[in-house]
């Protein structure tokens, strides 16, 4: 393998794939970055076996020559040292050559590094993607989907399946569900696709967080391919693979109540701030609990009481209250998490009783829903 490449572009790609590489891996080969030189360009791969990131540098872009490939081939180089070396190369161009038995020479300006590589055949094989079964989503929508669901995944490993987000694709609709069994986030979006297939997979929350970090904000579509073991997200010159979680996701459709006894309409921002203030005193108490009760027509009261600290009450004006009077307690943290990801200035909340889960939706938007279980207080 021998090629020369533009340093800045190369360093950027190395940075990207480095995000997938973990320092505490048990598999020695995964401490390295895999470099593949083909006729089309240079491909870099980093992986911690949970997620893998591939970055591609084409030979030519917008008329500029980025890479000059003299000989094709592959090599795996230690990521930590390689990253530092590439960042600090003196000249604009870098030349990389594998001489013999994985010994790699990196030349730039007057500097020359000789690095011991690893056998590229030892590197995990990423799934081969078959063209065709592809879904498309705009990058900004994908990022919103992730942001609006992933916060609700479970942080504990007692039920591993709940640490992921359930993605269901049916009839051109993507439904994302995340729950930690105390709250649930649900989001629906239309996907662009040419064929009809149904998928039901669970993607680890950690992987989605990483994906969200690595994608830039743009309208460009991201292609999504789902295989048996992995899911692939393909942006421009960037491939992101993640393993899936094993097992069946619990059926959540029956959890979401369809009827309601009480309906509230509130201004999102005012309500969020009121909850935030009430939680100041609640935070110290157990469970971070605040209480919501109706005191008058179009007036609700948010209160919290920690006997050893003090108490707080605040009245919030509601646009409209319908149905039975209700007193309900819930976790302020869950409520704030839910309110922060809801778009729109007005929200409505539907209750079906003080001991039943309640649903929060933005006004005039049925593509997103947040569900919270109340807390029993005596």
């Amino acid at each position: 393998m021998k090629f020369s490449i533009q340093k800045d572009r190369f360093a950027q790609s190395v940075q990207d794939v480095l995000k997938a590489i973990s320092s505490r891996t048990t598999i020695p080969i995964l401490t390295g970055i895999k470099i593949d030189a083909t006729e089309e360009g240079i491909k870099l791969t980093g992986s911690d076996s949970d997620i893998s990131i591939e970055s591609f540098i084409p030979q030519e872009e917008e008329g500029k020559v980025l890479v000059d490939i003299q000989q094709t081939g592959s090599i795996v180089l230690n990521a930590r040292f390689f990253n530092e070396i590439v960042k600090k190369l003196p000249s604009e161009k870098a030349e990389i050559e594998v001489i013999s038995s994985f010994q790699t020479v990196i030349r730039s300006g007057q500097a020359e590094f000789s690095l011991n590589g690893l056998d590229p055949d030892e590197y995990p094989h990423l799934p081969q993607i078959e063209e065709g079964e592809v879904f498309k989503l705009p990058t900004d929508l994908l990022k919103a989907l992730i942001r609006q669901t992933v916060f609700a995944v479970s942080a504990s490993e007692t039920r591993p399946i709940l640490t992921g987000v359930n993605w269901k694709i049916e009839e051109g609709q993507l439904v994302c569900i995340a729950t930690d069994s105390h709250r649930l986030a649900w989001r629906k979006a239309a996907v662009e696709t040419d064929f009809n297939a149904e998928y039901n997979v669970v993607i680890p929350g950690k992987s989605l967080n990483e994906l969200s970090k690595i994608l830039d904000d743009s309208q460009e579509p991201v292609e999504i391919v789902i295989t048996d073991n992995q899911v692939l997200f393909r942006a421009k010159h960037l491939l992101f693979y993640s393993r899936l979680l094993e097992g069946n996701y619990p059926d959540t459709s029956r959890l979401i109540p369809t009827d309601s006894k009480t309906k509230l309409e509130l201004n999102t921002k005012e309500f969020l701030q009121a909850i935030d203030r009430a939680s100041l005193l609640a935070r110290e108490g157990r469970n971070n609990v605040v209480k919501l009760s109706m005191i008058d027509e179009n007036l609700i009261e948010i209160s919290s009481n920690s006997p050893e600290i003090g108490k707080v009450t605040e009245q919030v004006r509601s646009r409209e209250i319908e149905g039975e009077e209700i007193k309900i307690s819930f976790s302020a943290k869950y409520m704030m998490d839910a309110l922060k990801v809801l778009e729109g200035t007005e929200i409505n909340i539907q209750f079906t009783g003080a001991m039943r889960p309640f649903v929060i939706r933005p006004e005039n938007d049925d593509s997103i829903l947040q569900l919270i279980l109340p807390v029993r207080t005596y």
Partner: protein
Amino acid sequence: MSDIWKDLNELQPIVLKMIMNGLAKGRVAHAYLLEGDPGTGKKQTALYFAKSLLCEEEGIMPCNECSNCRRIDSGNHPDVHIVEPDGLSIKKQQIVFLQQEFSKTAVEANRKIYIINHADKMTASAANSLLKFLEEPAADTVALLLTEQAQRMLPTIISRCQLLSFKPLPPDLLKNKLIEKEVSLPMAALVSRLTNNFDEAFRLGTEEWFAQSRKIVLKLYEVLLKNPLEAMVKLQEDFNGHFKDKQQVSLALDLLLLLFKDLLSIQTGNEQGLAYPDQLALLKNTALHSSIVNTTEQITAILEAKRKLDANMNPQLLMEQLVLKLQGGASFV
């Protein structure tokens, strides 16, 4: 047929047969416990088994050449996880990591395999975490637990595994092999009792330090017999200086244990296959002065000392206590 296969089949025909039958009939259990003395080829078998499950080639026998087989050999296969004790024990964290790993789908193949070496060294909480994991196996997960001391493992873990018992190699086989390599008879007899691994036996048998160790342990034994009061002094003189770290003390205890075992077998009338054949006269002499009950008590004391050493007792105090106990046994005769 590969060499490894031939070697293993020669040493452990029953275990290999069980594994091969399981593979051939497509009835691979979700967990196996590979149990046997050091050097009986447990780890080799485990890796071999993993290769059989993941090899790309047709057939039951792994090819040892495809990329899966080669990556298992080098420890780079992403779907084969090997857990080794971290320091003295396998920590709960390592098992939790394993559990997280196995809640996800496999990276490449459709099977995931984990190998836990020295499974008896799991801490109590680690063993209990593993138990839960073993109870609810995900599809196509194979667990291979390796241990030298199956009796130290939780019975609830053992009951959830298919047991593969590795036969100890006959000591005479190794002894004769060593003698062929020009290791002296007394040495060959002793080291063939200590290990089943030829390379290690050969290394010990030709090592100056080990020869010295043997001498010191024998001297300690003699002093214990003749002049129990001097034993403590002897301990200070040679023993503590020679056996410095824990592993070395453990070896010394093994040597001492074999000596008492020889004594016991002479007392029960068996003079064949001794670990110290050159000391026959001395041992015979002692055998007359001591009772079988006494000897078993002394053996118990040594085993107890071994256990305490594993539990991090100060080696010097441990040896002093042991010497006192062994004396106690002798003075009652």
